[in-house]
């Protein structure tokens, strides 16, 4: 545990956006060399608070005071907060995929000698930094060839290159698998030992429990409580209680499925990698989903679950080789996304920002965008009908937004996810494929999304849930397929499944399968 002196105090921070007060007098204090966790529902204002702290929203655009290292600071931008030693790693990674590791790390802080960039020195320092974060790869590797976990480590290396004293991590593990997450958390413990303070936003309570020294809970832009904890003794129930205002007895809603006949079946599905000919990303995959059933796809990151789903959804990924799809007992061919939608299939992508949403659109326009036919009157879009549909989903899904006319860009992650779900519920599909539907979503909203999924299955739809969190799959599905390296390696009834067995099946390589 760090010493008692606070390195950071934020006093009565307020921040308004048009129509929304995102922060309403947040006060918190962080002790030196602590790992300080910030929790709160989606839209509570966590990211906004961190953006205020790191100068993304410069002094003058918010109210209140920030005291860093005993001095009141007024950052004019990210540069000036970095000079003070505060570095933020945003919720969305901010590396440039085309550039190499070393170029990314020194982007904006190039080491210049005689007016030219000193690449030798940059490489030397990069090697050093990469060693500190436990990465042993060539600094000239382009970012786009790295996995998300490694990219996250590069982000931290980049932060370390700036003499960081307070490192802010906004949902650092939301896109990482378990191994990478653990690796990252260990790294944070290492930084703490070197006297670096970490502020971490996370929705994963088990991670908070594992590493944090103090917790601050924010709700509706206000501090609910902030308290120090003995490491390893965070009370998850207490956090949930202060986050959502009451306790959640169950993380997963009770559900009794009514399962009917098989309505969706994929046989001998083979798909080639889009750019590496001959490499199969789906190898003889077979699976079925019944009416009213929730089926899970478990697998490690990169196992090929998303690729399988997207290749089925109108061949929107990879090069189709062979295979058949049966819908309601009839064979269908789905050469493009439109055909898939027309046949009653919906796919909710894992990456909301780049694949699920047009960030320029309002909630209203997004909600109807996959089924414009549904709001046509005499061939023209009917504004009133569009409004009614969008407003209906906003109310029933309890999306937190001032109105359906606001841009989806201004919504917090969880609320964006609700809008994307509404977008795919409106075409009224028979088969819904949900790719990581709860990534980056708070416990309360997760519960609501689980309930929505169950309601959809109760309406007789077939639902496929792809998730990297095994407890989630065990909590809401009826059956789980495991996928490894593009192959389906097994299937179990959820009632009889256990984590160890699933883990084993998820790592069974091709040769060992069956």
């Amino acid at each position, binding site marked *: 545990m760090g010493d008692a002196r606070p390195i950071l105090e934020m006093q009565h921070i307020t921040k*308004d*956006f*048009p*129509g*929304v*007060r995102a922060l309403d007098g947040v006060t918190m204090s962080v002790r030196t060399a602590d790992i300080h966790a910030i929790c709160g529902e989606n839209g509570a204002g966590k990211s906004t608070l961190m953006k205020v702290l790191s100068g993304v929203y410069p002094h003058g655009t918010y109210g209140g005071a920030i005291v860093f290292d005993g001095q009141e600071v007024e950052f004019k931008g990210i540069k000036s907060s970095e000079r003070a030693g505060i570095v933020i790693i945003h919720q969305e990674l901010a590396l440039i995929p085309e550039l190499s590791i070393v170029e990314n790390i020194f982007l904006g802080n190039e080491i210049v000698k005689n007016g030219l960039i000193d690449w030798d020195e940059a490489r030397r320092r990069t090697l050093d930094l990469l060693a500190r974060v436990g990465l042993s790869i060539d600094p000239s590797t382009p970012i786009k060839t790295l996995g998300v976990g490694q990219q996250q480590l590069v982000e931290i290396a980049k932060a370390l290159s700036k003499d960081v004293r307070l490192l802010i991590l906004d949902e650092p593990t939301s896109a990482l698998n378990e191994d990478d997450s653990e690796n990252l958390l260990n790294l944070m413990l290492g930084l703490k030992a070197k006297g670096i303070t970490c502020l971490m936003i996370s929705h994963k309570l088990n991670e908070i429990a594992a590493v944090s020294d103090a917790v601050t809970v924010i709700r*509706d832009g206000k501090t609910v409580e902030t308290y120090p904890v003995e490491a390893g003794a965070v009370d998850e129930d207490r956090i949930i209680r202060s986050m*959502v*205002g*009451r306790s*959640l*007895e*169950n993380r997963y*809603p*009770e*559900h*009794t499925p009514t399962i009917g006949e098989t309505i969706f079946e994929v046989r001998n599905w083979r798909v080639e990698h889009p750019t590496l000919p001959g490499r199969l990303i789906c190898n003889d995959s077979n699976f079925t989903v019944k009416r009213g059933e929730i089926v899970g796809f478990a697998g490690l990151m990169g196992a090929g679950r998303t690729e399988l789903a997207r290749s089925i*959804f*109108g061949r*929107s990924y990879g090069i189709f080789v062979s295979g058949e799809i049966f819908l309601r007992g009839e064979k269908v061919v789905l050469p*493009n*996304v*439109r055909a*898939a*939608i027309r046949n009653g299939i919906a*796919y909710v*992508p894992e990456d909301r920002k*780049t*694949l*699920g*949403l*047009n*960030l*320029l*659109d309002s909630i209203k*326009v997004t909600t109807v*965008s*996959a089924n*414009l*036919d549904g709001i*046509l009157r005499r061939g*023209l*879009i*009917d*504004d*009133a009908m569009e*409004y*009614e549909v969008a407003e209906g989903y906003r109310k029933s899904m*309890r*999306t*937190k*937004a*001032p*109105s359906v*006319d606001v841009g989806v860009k201004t919504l917090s992650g969880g609320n964006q996810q609700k809008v994307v779900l509404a*977008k795919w519920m409106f075409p009224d599909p028979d088969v819904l494929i949900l790719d990581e539907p709860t990534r980056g979503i708070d416990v*309360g909203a997760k*519960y*609501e999304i689980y*309930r929505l999924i169950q309601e959809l299955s109760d309406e007789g739809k077939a639902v496929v849930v792809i998730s990297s969190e095994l407890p989630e799959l065990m909590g809401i599905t009826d059956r789980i397929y495991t996928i490894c390296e593009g192959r389906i390696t097994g299937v179990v009834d959820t009632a009889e499944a256990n984590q160890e067995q699933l883990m084993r099946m998820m790592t069974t390589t091709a040769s060992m399968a069956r």
Partner: protein
Amino acid sequence: MKSLKQVLGGDLRQFTMVGALIALLIAFEIASGGRMLTSSNFQNLLSGNAYVLILAIGMVMVIVIGQIDLSVGSVAGVVGMIVALTARDLNVPWWVALFIGLGVGMLIGAWQGMWVARIGIPGFITTLAGMLIFRGVVIWISGSISVPVPDEFRTLGSGYLPEWGPTFTQMNNSTLLLGILAIVALGWTQFRKYSRLSSMASEKPPLWPVVVRVVLIALVIGYLTWLFGSGRPGTSFPIPGLILVALVLVYSTITQRTRFGRHIYAVGGNRAAAALSGVDTKRVTFIVMANMSFLAAIAGIMFVGRATAAGPSDGTAWELDAIAAVFIGGAAVSGGIGTVTASMVGGLVMAVLNSGLSLMGVGADRTAVIKGLVLLAAVAFDVYNKEQGRPSILGRLFPKKEPVATAAEPAGSAPVAGKKG
């Protein structure tokens, strides 16, 4: 502030632009000693700029899908020349030449659309090539000399509506009829929209903003009707203006109210997400690029009609005027943002500047400098507002009094656990 917003119907940016346009008109009226707001000046302004505004209609769609078209001037030139040559040398009626011209426009559009949509060459490069190719073709087929066009084309390029009916109206009755029709149509749509909305909303929205809006619209259209209709006998609202208005209506409807229109914005906003929502992104790109050349053909034909002859350098630098109009109208270079009506306002700002400055005797050199500065200022204004997260200059002049009034409502959004099961 709130009531102003209600009257204008929310879209403040557009009304800021309209406000700027009106201010500009009044300023020039004063500076030129009353020669700006006259019938003949307005008639000239419209028929002299209709072709650029028509290009801007197509250009805003191109820019919304994230492309650009540099070839429109050359395409307009080539089509105008082909029309003139077919009419003169092939001895066909004028309307056959017209349709041949439009057909050539569509073919050129299909050609450019193919390179951009099917083969994936960026529009900038495809149309840069098109600009060179088609300019070359004009000079080639014309042998560098002007070719006169049949008189019928003059009607398209600078004609007036017929005179008829009683004379006590003191103006051109065709124009008067158009004005009345426009007021009735706009008033009717406003009230119908209101009644649809109020039949759905739980609490009835107030009626008065709609009434005020309709009265304002009626006043503006009434004034314009009088201005256009009361000129020299034989003049009226110009026919090129009428073609322009018809195209604006058609294309506004396409972009704002049809499935295809939504697809255009989806492709420009996020191509990958659009594809995963069932949008045929290639088809959209193809149609939008092809349509641009089609509109360029119309513009080219109207221009040769007005000039009474097709010249080898017709259309030079028109693309720049069209692009400038679109960006003054608030479109985004990165795509996804921009509307037909706003681009028309942008184009009119440029046209009024041209006209007003020339009335004041400012030379073409200084006019170009001023237009360039206006373009920069308009876009800088947009960028600044976006960075500040402020919607418009009006928003700054009239700060909101109740910033969190709406934020109170989501408090009830906390999940209710165990409602079911």
